[in-house]
Structure formats: C-alpha cells, structure tokens
C-alpha cells in the first residue's frame, strides 16, 4: 500500500455511534451470541437423549441462577435479532431507507424486544 501515511478518517474510537449504527452492530453481536445459545440447545438435547439422569442434571443447571441469567440473556438476544431482522426484511422489500423511517423502525424493534422479553418471562 502506498497510502500508508495519508490522514485517517475518524474511526470507531472517535465517533459516538448513532442509534442506527448501534442497532446494526448489536444485530451482529446478538447473532454470534445466539450461536452460543444454539450450542447450549444442542447440549440440552444431548442430555435429554442420554436419559433421565443427565436430563435432570441439565435441567438443574439451567434452573440455577446462572442458568436462568443465561436464558434471560438468550431471550433478549433472540428477540432483538428477530426485531432487527424484520427491519432487514423490510429494507430488502425496499421499504424504510429514509432517515425518519429508519429511526422509527429502530425504535419499534427496541420496544418489541422489551415487550416480547417481558411477555416471555412474566406471562
């Protein structure tokens, strides 16, 4: 590269990410996080296939404080990823690229995350 000494534009350490950028990177982070949930689901199904003893052990671990904290985080990540995923589907349909609509859909996705998480854990 011959451009090494050219001035750099301000990057992640300088910018305060606007909401839309935060939504975007959070979508990616929750997506990777949900893979951890997938691995836990695989472990849980394996434990269930192993019989009553291993299933009960797995249930006890998931029912512990740490287990429930993990399940809560998993549900938040799932609902966020789902809500933001719907925004991606709308964009793929050509809807919502204008700034005001992008902010509107971001807020709707955030509210949906909170509402669905509360519904999943309270009702």
């Amino acid at each position: 590269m011959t451009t090494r000494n050219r001035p750099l534009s301000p990057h992640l350490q300088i910018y305060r990410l606007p909401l839309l950028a935060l939504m975007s990177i959070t979508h990616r982070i929750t997506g990777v996080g949900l893979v951890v949930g997938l691995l836990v689901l695989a472990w849980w199904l394996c434990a269930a296939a192993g019989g009553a003893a291993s299933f009960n052990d797995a249930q006890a671990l998931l029912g512990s404080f740490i287990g429930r904290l993990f399940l809560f985080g998993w549900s938040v990540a799932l609902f966020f990823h789902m809500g933001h995923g719907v925004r991606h589907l709308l964009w793929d349909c050509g809807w919502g690229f204008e700034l005001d609509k992008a902010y509107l859909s971001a807020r709707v996705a955030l509210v949906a995350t909170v509402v669905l998480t509360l519904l999943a854990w309270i009702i």
Partner: protein
Amino acid sequence: MSLRSPIGRARGLGSAKQGLGHHWATIVTAVGLIPLSLWFVISVKGLVGLDYAGFKAWMGQGSHAALMILTVLLVIWHAVLGLAMVIEDYVHCEAKKFAALIAIRLVGALLAVGMTVSILKVAVGG
C-alpha cells in the same frame, strides 16, 4: 473508457466474492424462523417444571418433534450463513478464513445430525 458495465466491474469485489444465493438463503431461513422461534419460546416455557417422562411425552407427539427438528435445522443453516458473513468481514488472513469457513460448515453439519438424532431418540426411543 472501459466498455465493461458498472455491474460487471463491481461483481466479485466484495469480501465474500459472491453473495446473492447466500443472502437469499438468509432471507428464506429468517422468514421461517420468525414463527418457529416464537413457537420454540412458548413451548420451552410450557416445559418448565416437567420431569423426564413428561418431556418425553411432549416430544413424543409427532408435530412437536417435527417442528423442533425443523427449527433446529433452519437455525443451524441461518447461523452458518451469518457466521460465514462475519468471518468473511473480519478474518483477513486467507488461510485462517478458509479454515474457519470450512470448520463452521462441518460443525453445522455435525450439530444438524446430532440434534436431529437426539430429538428422535427422545421422541421415539425406549
């Protein structure tokens, strides 16, 4: 002046070199996973407090095992597509990138087979 069309010049320049089929598969699995994830959350909530016999009886219903297998397979497919995108964006060493892209697909295949067999074993096993 180049005689190549703008799309012709742009093709193959992204970090993944191609991507329409990838994106389309992501969309199809995402659309399927919206109802399936909601079904999964509601189902798992209903399972809280069940003992092993109760869980086996629940999974033993054909529709539950079928929906669970469908959910698991679509999740794995969607996850492999998403992870591939993340790897293509952030892993710049070609050797590591290809190793990772191969690894996630093989682990995905392993999970697909293992989780399907586990579900079937709970559903119809002795």
